[in-house]
């Protein structure tokens, strides 16, 4: 964590040193000699340091204090300025269930903020203080991150900073970019779009709403709420890309209200039925009984397309099927009139089975 004595000097562009590269060892020794002889230069240059970026970003972030404290809910979270008129982007949570949210900048300035609007689908909220902030992120300048990018996450995780203290800066890399949609059933989140997965524990109480930036200080994303990945059995450290929230934020700032979208996937009225297809599975005796086919009715659709006893159903319309329960659940969403593609394992072969309506 950082203390209040963070060196705020904006480092000057480094004097250019030209190294003639002859060989690694030679070079290392040489660099040592040069640098050892110029301690003051090396200190001013801030080589290898993210100090300047960190300080810049700090000035754009706020610590938010609101409702909570009951039932173990936290009463604080993070946010950052996104306009010269004092708009703040943060996550939508119970912390905001008060008339006036208190926002405290890294320079100690204190604001009262009110909620302008929310997007229930992204679980974000835009607040405004009505006063000009010391610095802000322009969402239009935000960039798309890539896997392997080094990043800084700036947030008030665990509420560790108070008053004029700066938020905490964590470093990491974008470990992966993944779609929460593809991990349906494993993560309880309203948001289903792509996220940056980070390799450092950024998503802790209070961190939600913090800023994710690259090492040039460019905004990449907003830290999300704590989420557990039940399939991998780990906590997910992630941020939502700004490109996913940008248009929504603009709408909110223009006073539009955003409705909760209906769950995109609804069970269908006439779902696919194993019995109707002519498939009998092995008895479902375990919590995760594999969907092995026990028998196929002669003359049925299943027999027609060549399904056989002992086939193991692995995927249905590209959704992974780990158990009979998974299979029954998935079929609820597939209409009898829909095309159905199954990937089954037969011995050591994978066979694709297509059931056209």
């Amino acid at each position, binding site marked *: 964590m950082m203390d209040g004595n963070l060196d705020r000097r904006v480092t000057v562009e480094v004097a250019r040193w030209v190294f003639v590269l002859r060989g*690694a060892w030679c070079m290392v020794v040489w660099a040592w000699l040069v640098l050892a002889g110029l301690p003051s230069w090396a200190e001013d240059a801030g080589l290898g340091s993210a100090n300047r970026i960190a300080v810049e970003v700090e000035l754009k972030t706020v610590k938010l204090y609101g409702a909570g404290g009951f039932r173990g809910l936290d009463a604080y979270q993070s946010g950052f300025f996104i306009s010269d008129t004092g708009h703040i982007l943060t996550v939508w949570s119970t912390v905001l269930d008060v008339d006036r949210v208190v926002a405290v900048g890294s320079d100690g300035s204190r604001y009262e903020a009110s909620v302008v609007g929310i997007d229930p689908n992204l679980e974000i909220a835009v607040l405004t203080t009505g006063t000009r902030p010391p610095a802000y992120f322009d969402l239009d300048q935000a960039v798309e991150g890539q896997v392997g990018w080094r990043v800084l996450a700036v947030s008030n995780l665990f509420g560790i900073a108070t008053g004029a203290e700066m938020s905490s800066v964590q470093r990491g890399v974008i470990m*992966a970019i993944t779609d929460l949609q593809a991990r349906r059933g494993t993560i309880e989140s309203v948001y289903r779009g792509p996220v940056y997965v980070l390799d450092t524990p950024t998503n802790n109480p209070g961190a939600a709403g913090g800023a994710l930036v690259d090492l040039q200080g460019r905004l990449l994303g907003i830290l999300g709420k704590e989420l557990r990945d039940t399939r991998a059995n780990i906590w997910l450290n992630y941020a939502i890309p700004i490109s996913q929230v940008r248009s929504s934020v603009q709408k909110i700032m223009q006073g539009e209200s955003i409705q909760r979208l209906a769950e995109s996937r609804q069970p269908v009225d006439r779902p696919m039925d194993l019995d109707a297809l002519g498939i009998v599975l092995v008895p479902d005796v375990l919590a995760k009984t594999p969907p092995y086919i026990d028998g196929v009715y002669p003359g049925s659709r299943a027999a027609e397309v060549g399904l056989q006893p002992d086939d193991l159903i692995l995927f249905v319309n590209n959704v992974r099927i780990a158990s009979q329960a998974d299979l029954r659940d998935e079929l609820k969403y597939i209409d009898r009139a829909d095309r159905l593609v199954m990937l089954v394992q037969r011995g050591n072969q994978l066979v694709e089975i297509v059931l056209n309506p």
Partner: protein
Amino acid sequence: MQLPSACCYRSAVAVFVGWALAAFGSGAVLHAQSTASVSAVELLELEQQAFRAAAAAAQDVAVQIESFGGLERVGDELVSDGPTTGTIVGADGWIVSTLYSFRQQPASILVTLPDGRRLPARIVSRDHSRELALLKIDGVAGLPVARPSRLLERPDDLVGRWAVALGKAYDPRVASQSVGIVSATGRAYGRALQTDAKVSPINYGGPLIDLWGDVLGVLAPISPGPMVEGGDQLYDSGIGFAIPWTDILARLETLQSGTDIYPGKLGVVTTDPNEMAGPVVVEGAMPGAAAGRLGLEPGDVIVVAGGMPVRRLADLQQALGPRDAGQELPLTIWRRGQRIDLQATLTKEIPIYRRRLVGFWLRETDDGQLEISAVESGSPAEGAGLKTGDRIVGCNGVRPISAERLRRMIAVAELDQALRLAVLGPDGSQRDVSVRPIERPEALPASSGPVLDGDAGEPRVVDINLGDFPNKAYAVVPVKRVDQPLGVLIVFPEPGELEAAKTLDYWSACVRSNGWIVAVINSGNRSGWSLEEVELGMRTLGRLQKLYPIDPQRVVLGGLGIGGRVALLAAMSAPERVTGVLTIQTNLGEFAPRQMNMPMKSLDFLLVGDAAQMQASAETLRKGGYLVTIVEGSGGDTNSWQAAPIDQLQLWLAGLARY
């Protein structure tokens, strides 16, 4: 996190220039520059480019693995069934992953190659020492194979090197990347590298690569040692492990032939079972183990193992760690001033050890001799004609002999070989007695052994000071000093308080005539026991040992109700100092002892309570070689002695001191 402080910059630059050159020279994707101008941001950018270039060069050796069906739980734990990662080790479809990925025994395993092809895989073999599985997919050729990192050739130079952990759980095409350094080598008894890159189920089975894109090792949730729980519990701790790639390649042929690999076991029993104890003096061998066939003799000192000097027991374990069953371990020993080189062939299993019994009690006479103070009826000792009053002056040619030495000899005795005792009768006549030890029976001893000489007087209660712990503890002790060493029972009751009056009332006869101390440690918090309080058992023992002569053969940790679990944990943490565990109306639940029963570290268990309920726990303990006696008992609240029948309890306690 902490940003680098100013004073670090100079060295940071030096390190950077070193690796940047290495990266340019290796032909990795970075553009070679004849000049390097370094600004703060550029330095960070260049590093980032190096990480990404390495990952891009290496990511096609990692594949996604999906499992279908199988168990929902393994033990108490809900098994995650998300995708995991594997690393290609053979161009024709050989893939290494961790056993962790297949704990649920899936009905089917699919591998997705970076080009999107999805193929069924089968497990060909398992390396149980490194917790790896070798998979095969058929019908493929020309897959990219991971190259071993050249850094592995110089293990001394590994720590501090950049390392990137790759995983394919999120995406079969683009690997997830976590950047860190190599934190240590030779972890988990010489089997693993340690890294601070984020290692979790997302990348278990994936490669840990260097900045050239070559593989340092395969990420695995290996258990680092006996003191730390392994597996995925460490995933957010900054501690991750990888099995060195060269160690995997060295075993590839064996694994490809379908042969499973197991950790190699030696089975030597040393005079001091403490890991930090040295020098390492041989007492004997685990009955049936490799060490027995090696011809090791009691008194041999192991000085070199696998080319490395052995000063403590831990050094020997470090030498054993990376070796598999069937592999050789060269040993050098000192025997009577001579250096002898031996070659041990390590084995997969050592027969489960069960404690031995000859069937007599000993007391030390004033002139320091070992006198039989009682003989158990029906025991081998009785059958061999040993009588109360006989003195044992030697065993198997060792003469004179100490009580401890005799105990160790009995502990490691083979069941089919008789011990040769040199015995002095009460009349001064000498004779040799051959007696063959048996496996200690679970039944309570047929007799209660010797009683204390004279009366120790009406017992009293003394307080025990536990230092910085708030727990109140007391002991019921004999009022008069006695010459003979005393047994000690240390009890963890239910959380709350067990009054001294109750304990005194129940135990006073036993303390008075059988020479026992009964100590009770009340919980620090009324609502429950905490893990930290487990160490109070040994602390209390230490306090008592300073005040009284304690018989090392009669050290028992006991518990009432839930306190029995605390007692079990305390005993398992120091089996070389404890000989018995007593639980009264304790539901031990599901647990697996982390270590098997060992000579000189044996624990005898007495479980008092509902016999039917305790059967499963007893079976688990028996499988580990422990002796478990069950006594039916119930009634009263769980925080009282009432449930335990004192007669049977006394018989069991007396039995602990038997040879």
